[in-house]
């Protein structure tokens, strides 16, 4: 148990540090690299939770494919000062936003960390739930995921294909449009 907590704390620190890095770095490449670290630390969280398949998918899809896209985008950014340091006409909003964010984060973490308990039978209900039941100890984790995905969550799985079609169409519509424009 303590090993788990230790591992979690280490990965959590890494995740937070890299997350701050993503927004704090001025150079877009550094931000992208921080994002890779952040995504990998998320994969580590999944491993700690025994989610082998989702950890693998995280590395495959996010750290792999999505980062490729990010780097493509970065190549199109310029290092002009104008884009690096955008002036903010509504700076008071940023201040209010920061204050509101801090209040929310403080209130939420106070409630969730100090007072909240998982109801015993919610946990039981959760563990009786489809996914948990089939991921009984000893069975392969990816198998359990597959059983849930292809049986209990059959309907959402098929809907996902429609969402992917929409995404593909979006890539073609917006991509082709810009290409036609740049060839003008």
């Amino acid at each position, binding site marked *: 148990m303590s090993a788990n907590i230790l591992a979690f704390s280490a990965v959590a620190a890494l995740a937070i540090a890299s997350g701050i890095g993503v927004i704090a770095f001025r150079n877009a490449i550094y931000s992208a690299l921080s994002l890779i670290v952040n995504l990998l630390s998320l994969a580590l969280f999944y491993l700690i939770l025994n989610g082998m398949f989702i950890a693998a998918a995280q590395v495959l899809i996010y750290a792999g494919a999505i980062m490729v896209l990010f780097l493509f985008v970065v190549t199109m950014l310029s290092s002009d000062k104008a884009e690096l340091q955008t002036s903010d006409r509504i700076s008071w909003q940023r201040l209010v936003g920061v204050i509101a964010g801090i209040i929310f984060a403080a209130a*939420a973490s106070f*409630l*969730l960390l100090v*007072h*909240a*308990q*998982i*109801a015993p*039978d*919610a*946990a*039981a*209900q*959760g563990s009786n*739930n*489809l996914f948990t*039941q*089939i991921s*009984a100890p000893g*069975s392969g984790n990816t198998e359990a995921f597959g*059983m*849930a995905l292809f*049986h*209990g*969550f*059959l*309907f*959402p799985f098929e*809907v*996902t294909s*429609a*969402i992917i*079609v*929409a*995404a593909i*169409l*979006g890539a*073609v*519509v*917006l991509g*082709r*449009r810009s290409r036609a*424009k740049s060839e003008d």
Partner: protein
Amino acid sequence: MNFIYTVSNADWGHLLALAPLVVTTALTMLIDIFLPAKARSALVAVALAGVAGSGAGVYMLYQSSGNVLAFNGMITTDHLALFGSVIILVTTFLSLLIAPGYIERQGVAQQGEYYTLVQLAALGMLLLTSAASLMTIFLGIELLSLPLYILCAFSPGQTKAYESGMKYFMLSAFASGFLLYGMALTYGATGTTQLAGIQNFLANHQFTLTSGFGPYFIMGMALLIIGLSFKVSAIPFHAWTPDVYEGAPTPITAMMASGTKTAAFVVFIRLFTETFGSVTAEWQGIIWALAIITTIGGNILAATQTNVKRMLAYSGVAHAGYMLIGVAVANSLGTAGVLTYLAVYALMNTGAFGVLSALEQQIDTNVGLDDLRGLASRSPLLAAAMAIFLFALAGIPGAAGFIGKYTVFYAAAVSGHIELTIIGVLASAAGFFYYLRVIWMMYFVPPAGSSAESESLHAEIISAGGSAAAAKVSIATAAAVALPVGATIALFIAAVGVIGFGIAPAEIIQLARNAAGLP
């Protein structure tokens, strides 16, 4: 090791409302790539057939009885879902009818993509109304949003279109994050993603803000409210609405304004009024406050607009406020009110945007108040249609909008929330101003091109060596607006519906009451 759930044959029957649209979506894509460009006019017919087929499916499901849950409690086909589905199908149908003339005028070359995406968005909305699990709710929201992001940015070469798509995408993705976190916390608190399971759990457990699973659940609920309020564009989550509506192609704006709102409000009802119905005290206050702010703020903001599309966007915010009143009363009567409101809103709002899209075929920019000057003398029928829709939106008795307002305000009054009724009535009275201003412009202000003023304007343009385009615009504004066939049919259907429901509302009110579970 078993996997608990096996799909039964009966499950597939519940897809009757979705299946026709799925088939025609695929058909649209196939026609677009395999048939010659001349066959493109068939695309809209295929899409319309899909919507009609789905309508028939809804009717068959309405006739059938028995278990409403299907696929492991993922979707439901109860009367609430079917009522919402009909509204969405009608909106999509009207939007598709308006589309051909509009997109040809705007020079949209990618018609196949356009119709495919419209159908996918409609599928997402239908899925959302029939969602019975947090999982399906999220998938439905993504399936409806993703095509809409793309459609918002569809008009080629327009900065406003890109701005619209980009803003909608960024802010909507942000709101989805809130929604997803809220779902995760709700799941953590109750141990299930199925709405029936959550309802059951809440009925059997006590909690407070600072004990038990209360913190998880209440935080989750708050985040769910934020995510859904964004979708219905309630103040203070409304800021995206005018910019996105303005830049999107007008038929899409029409579909977004009524369709997304319907889908999101059905989820609001299913999630809050039904699933969280036993813990009303925990969320009612927030919705109550949102309803008041949105009602008042929406009307004030709408009154300051001179661009008609933006004015309608803010009026949409105000209408979301009236509908939130129905959610805030937290009972079946309120639900029936919201559903009635959604039904009539779909007709009058789509109609108003339909008129705008007809006007935009004539002038290149968005329609400003000045462009409507003297519309009654140029195109009397179009002006009459617009007047009907605006009277309905304002809530003047005799047009359908009044029925929606009446049922919602009545529900608030008899449920002990008389303050919401008073605020709602006062706000709608204030709303008369900006709707009637448009009507006044159409009927009582002479058109810009007919007077001596315009001749001097012409002389000015010519003497200043003004561009031919400018002269063309001012001449075009003076001419009658040519209406494509599809748009004419759409406006006719919407106008007949608005007047019909305004005069004989009993039927629709009864259907809405049935959907809400009232006799």
